């Protein structure tokens, strides 16, 4: 399945702004992050406080919905999903 990842603010300084990746069926957000941190040096430090523990400020949306309200890192992925990675809002 094909997954599109979009990175914003500080995340796009350590990875591409947008990338399309292929995953086998059954992949989760955890699978995706493992792939991304292997691909982009420096992303792991920005994203994780400890192995398997995201830093508090990291927001991950699957098709516009925060994975915190789905199944966290175990949130399943479907073909065509758009995953967004970004820090806390700072508008206004």
């Amino acid at each position, binding site marked *: 399945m094909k997954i599109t990842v979009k990175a*914003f*603010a*500080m995340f796009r300084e350590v990875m591409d702004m947008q990338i399309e990746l292929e995953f086998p069926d059954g992949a989760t957000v955890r699978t995706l992050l493992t792939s991304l941190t292997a691909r982009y040096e420096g992303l792991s430090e920005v994203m994780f406080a400890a192995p398997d523990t995201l830093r508090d*400020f990291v927001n991950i949306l699957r098709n516009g919905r925060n994975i915190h309200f789905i199944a966290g890192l175990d949130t399943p992925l479907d073909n065509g999903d758009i995953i967004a990675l970004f*820090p806390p*809002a*700072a*508008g*206004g």
Partner: protein
Amino acid sequence: MVLALQKEDIDISALIKNSRSTKDGAQVVFIGCVRDDGNMDALEIEAFVPVAEKDLRDISAEAIEKFGLTSVDIIHRYGRLELGETIVVILVGAGHRSEAYEGSRYIIERLKEKVPIWKQELSGNARGEWVH
């Protein structure tokens, strides 16, 4: 009602004129602008536009229900903004000033808390820290 993200400057006078109705006893305009903190000469504002637009619609609906507002307009800019430029305009209409002031304050606080928009300080050709 206008709920939008845009690069262009905002025509605040037109917004006020178009939004006002005979139900309004008060309109409150909040304008956020680029402050000179002494160590930068512009801001780069980035937004996740489709999600931000949905969040503006949600926040507007919340404020209307909570404060009985007659109208809400929110326009937030993105891209490079120079010192003194307008970043965001929030215009609310209400029957009375109390609801208008409270609704306006509620919207800007929710916007800062929720809407995926980020600021990076720029100084010359150098990019600084992301502001949180």
